[in-house]
């Protein structure tokens, strides 16, 4: 796979050299292909998604394993599974036509008004942005992180929990002292897998990021990502641009492989320390 794609993209790699990755100008009319804005967009949207999704997922996973009475556990599990089953294009449609005008845009305008003096919240905003894509990505990766963390929490022995209670711990103290420390490696691994999914997610970013070819320090203004750019431009691209887009795909592949390797290395290290 890597050989075939790299081979196709090779003329672009050769023509651009290192500036293919470090260049921030993407201009097919002048045959300039720098993909830094898209690498930036991929990383920024994924990190926004992670920052939102991790606390939510851990909350739901703790609720399911430690807090919920039996009768409510099943419906919540089904709901989370349902969230995982919805195809990404439906999230894109819903995000673009419903969440964006009703929730994300007002929030962005509020942020621009109150915190506009901070560069990352500088306005004016048109709605579509890194932030908008990140929020929908967060909803998409929550089920993965939740179900994996839930499995991890379940592996904590009941005896540890009882021991914590026997010491007079409150429920939260039990969670903090008995459940979380034992699960750290697994939770990091789960989050990394969620990150991997967010990095490669295409449709939602293509629909909600605004498809702009520049780096913008403001999170509430339009940008793009590698996968989003490929999806938006592939159909109407000429030969040179197609080669550049394929080259971007190779870069995305390398990034996701690095993340997955890092996830494994981290899980392995924590597992050994424990």
């Amino acid at each position, binding site marked *: 796979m890597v050989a075939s794609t790299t081979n196709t993209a090779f003329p672009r790699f050769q023509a651009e050299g290192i500036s293919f990755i470090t260049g921030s100008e993407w201009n097919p009319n002048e045959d300039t292909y720098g993909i830094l804005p898209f690498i930036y967009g991929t990383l920024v949207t994924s990190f926004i998604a992670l920052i939102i999704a991790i606390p939510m997922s851990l909350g739901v996973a703790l609720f399911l394993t430690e807090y919920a009475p039996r009768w409510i556990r099943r419906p919540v599990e089904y709901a989370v599974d349902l969230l995982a089953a919805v195809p990404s294009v439906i999230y894109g449609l819903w995000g673009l036509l419903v969440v964006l005008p009703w929730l994300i845009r007002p929030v962005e305008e509020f942020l621009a008004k109150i915190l506009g003096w901070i560069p990352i919240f500088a306005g004016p905003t048109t709605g579509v942005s890194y932030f908008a894509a990140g929020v929908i990505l967060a909803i998409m990766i929550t089920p993965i992180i939740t179900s994996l963390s839930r499995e991890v929490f379940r592996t904590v022995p009941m005896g540890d929990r009882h021991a914590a209670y026997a010491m007079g711990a*409150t429920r939260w103290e039990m969670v903090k002292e008995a459940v979380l420390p034992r699960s750290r490696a697994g939770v990091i691994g789960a989050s990394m897998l969620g990150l991997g999914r967010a990095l490669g997610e295409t449709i939602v970013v293509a629909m909600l990021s605004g498809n702009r070819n520049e780096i913008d320090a403001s999170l509430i203004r339009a940008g793009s990502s590698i996968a989003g750019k490929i999806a938006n431009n592939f159909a109407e691209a000429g030969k040179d641009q197609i080669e550049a887009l394929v080259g971007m795909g190779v870069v995305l592949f390398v990034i996701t492989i690095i993340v997955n390797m890092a996830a494994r290395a981290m899980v392995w290290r924590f597992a050994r320390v424990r």
Partner: protein
Amino acid sequence: MRYFKRQEASVQGFERWTGVRTAPGSGLVGARLSGRRLWRNRSRTILIGAAVAITLFPVLWILEEIFRRGGSAMSWEFITSSTPFSVMKSGGGFLNGLVGTGMMVGLAAAISIPLGTMAAVYLVEYGKNNWLAKVIRFFSDVMTGVPSIFVGIFIYTILVKPEQFTYSALAGAAALAIIMMPIIVRSSEEMLKLVPNELRDASYALGAAKWQTVIKVVLPAAAPGMTTGISLAIARAGGETAPLIVTILGTLHLSTSLFGPNTALPLLIYTQAGQAAEAAQARAWAGALELLAIVLVFTIVARVMSSRSRISQ
């Protein structure tokens, strides 16, 4: 430390509210909690409840919108006719997408199910832990983490090729098959591992050869569980959009040819949703309802099958 006595009933109320466990039947609550610990415990409970509420809210919201907007745009015409060429025109439907999705997912399943099953059988029954089995396991692990758009690009470079412009349903099916393979291999492997060795030994004791044992004993025993993985793979492939953008191009015609450009339900939703025209957006919502229904059917089949296989164990 101060201790205080309480009635059993109020102890239960106290436990429920603070999350503190007391020794059953003692009538004594342990050390009274300091305000800080009490507040911490209670605030964390509230935060966790809030996380659950915030996570469940999108589920209800997305379902509500799809059923309301999709339901009002859904009609018999939508299911049985193709997309009009003008996005402004109302009416029409996604029959072209339904046919395209059916063809490509069907072909992808026809490729990936036998190959995936054979790979899983090899892993469990023949390879075990030899180098080839390790290589297969490693690659199917890596494959699950590869972005689907990259799979599409790969197929583009070998089947479509720049400048030759041979976008085809065949290429789309190939991409979907690659996406389905690792799901089928890993889930089938787990299921085959669950088949008890006594069954295999019994078969050998009757004089059966290894291949007879695999085909007549092991596979039937694992079949319900393997169906679960296959259903999930089909549901996943049916909802994929990204790899199709770069392999089948997307048309508005109804096409039954494997070798020409084609379209698919998710692809039509994607292109119509991006239009400003109300009519196109209405079609996108109806398409979302149709796609979600199809995906959920396969997901539910997977659930039912997995619970059934658990019963048989």
